Every structure is written in C-alpha cells, then in structure tokens.
C-alpha cells in the first residue's frame, strides 16, 4: 500500500515533468512505468507508445515496452486479447 502511494506521488511528478517538457520521450517512459505500478495499464500502454514514437531506437525504452506487452498479454481478459486490442506489436517493433 505504502509503495502504491509512493508510486502515485511519482506519477504526479512525472505528469508535471511531462507538462514542462512534452517532447521528452524519457518522461513518457517514466510515466508509463508509474502507470503500470499503479495499475493503470491502458494508460501505460499509451505512454509507452508515445515514448517509442519519439525515440524508437532507445534500448531501455524498447525493453520496458516488450516486457510490459508480455505481462499485459497474459493479464488482459480473454475477450480483449481475442479482440486484438492494442498490444499486438512484437518485441523490438516500433508501434
């Protein structure tokens, strides 16, 4: 619980950083991680994709994204997976 609250605080700070510097892919990566940590997986996906659009060659970013996709595929309800949702990008691919 304490950790979750800490991540909420981190999320807030990353949001502030994104407002101050909206073209920085590293901030969106951090936002995505904080969203994952607070259980906002759709948002996390959105931020990862945004970050990758800005910096498709960043190794850490691509690593985070592929690990997230792997987790999210197994976590999503079956009907969403069957529906083809938004995590169909393979590891290493740019979304």
């Amino acid at each position, binding site marked *: 619980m304490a950790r979750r609250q800490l991540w909420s605080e981190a999320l807030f700070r990353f949001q502030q*950083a994104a407002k101050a*510097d909206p073209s920085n892919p590293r901030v969106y990566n*951090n936002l995505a991680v904080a969203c994952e940590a607070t259980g906002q997986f759709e948002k996390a996906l959105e931020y990862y994709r945004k970050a990758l659009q800005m910096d498709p060659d960043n190794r850490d970013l691509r*690593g985070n994204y592929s690990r*997230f996709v792997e987790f999210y595929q197994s*976590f999503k309800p079956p009907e969403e997976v069957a529906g083809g949702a938004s995590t169909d990008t393979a590891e290493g691919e740019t979304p």
Partner: protein
Amino acid sequence: MRHHRRGRATAILAVTLVTAGLALPFEAGSVDVRLTLPQRARLDLTGRNSIAITPFLVVSREGDSGGGRTVDIQKEFDRYLTKVMRRETELKVIEPGPVEFPTYDIDQLGREKDFWRVIGERLQADLIVCGSLDFDIQDRTGYRTESYVSPFDGRTYYRQVLVEQTGFEYDILMQVYDGESGELLFADNFKDFQSYEGEEADPLQGMFENLYSLEDRILGLFVQKEVEASRTLFTD
C-alpha cells in the same frame, strides 16, 4: 528555465525512489525499479462460484507404511486442499463424499464428459477438481566424500562418511472440469521433492512440506497472485 525545472523534478524523483527502496543498481541516466504486478488466475472464473473437490486417485502410497506410521495420502490431501481453497479463494467449496468413478485410468477420466456433467449437476458445482497423487519415499542414505583439515599437520584430507537421508517426492496431477458441460478445462502436474537428514523422517511431515511448497502454484489456478517485474526509469 524549462530545462532547469525538468532537471529539478527528475532529481527529486530519483532521490524519492532511491530512498524509498524502489530502486535497484544504478547506471548513468537510468535506474532499475521493481514493480509488483497482478497475475491473473490461470482458470477463467467468470460466472463460476462453486467448486467440488472429488477424491484424488492414489497412484503410489508409500507413506502408508513409512516409519511404522500410517498416513492416508488421499484423505490428508483432500482435507488439505479443501481447507486451502476455503481459506484462499472466494469459491464455495463442496465436499461430494464418496464418488464412484467409471474408470481409475486418469487419462480416460479426462474423456468422461457425461460423468463429470452428471457430477456437476448433482452437486450444483460450477467446477470440479480431480486428479491423482503419487507420493514416493526414497532412502537416499549413502557414503559422501567430505574434506577435513588435520589438527596435527594442518593438511586437508578426504574421508567417506555415511549420511542418512530420506527424500519425499510428491507428484500431483490436477484436473479441473466444467460442472455444466463436463469438459476438461485444465490439467497439469505439480511436483516437489524434499530431503531430510535421518532414516526415520516422518512421512506426514515430508508430505506437508511438499504441499506447502506447491501451494502457491496450486492456488495460482484459482486466485489472482502478484509477481515482481523490473523496469527502467530515466533519471536525467
């Protein structure tokens, strides 16, 4: 000005994460953090509220005579599973009493859809658990080589020593059936091995050590668990 603000925000954040113990080894410009993520139950429990635990078939019951003490493997396991399922899941657990199986071949049982459908209907169970148990006690006593330093000349020597050891191996084949259609939804093996010093180790204790070590994997079928994952955060 903008860069100054951003730098300050990320620096504060990095300090917050590190001091809070969220961070792992540090590299220039990035830090690895550990997240706790939910892991969905392996079975889809949507609309399923009750489960019947039928007696497991016993393939090997070595514990029955181990150490002069009788252990009813089947009864102990059924009691254990019922207790754990009641404690850890939201499912209503139904005890069906004695069940007359059409066959004692576990593979064949998996194809007896009509039988499982009738059981599900009779017990009003959305899910039915069945399977087989194989409990094996192994005498692993033997000679091992060990080194010792001589107090007289300070040199290292090797000697053979007799080590009495008992191994307990538990192999559970678990099957879960749909109570409405009788279809086999899930089948998997859960295996564990524990080893104890001494020839007369208690088979009941060995069996429960096996079960405790398998508990998370068994429950992972029915309840959401948490897993740890690592991600990279940028700090500059």
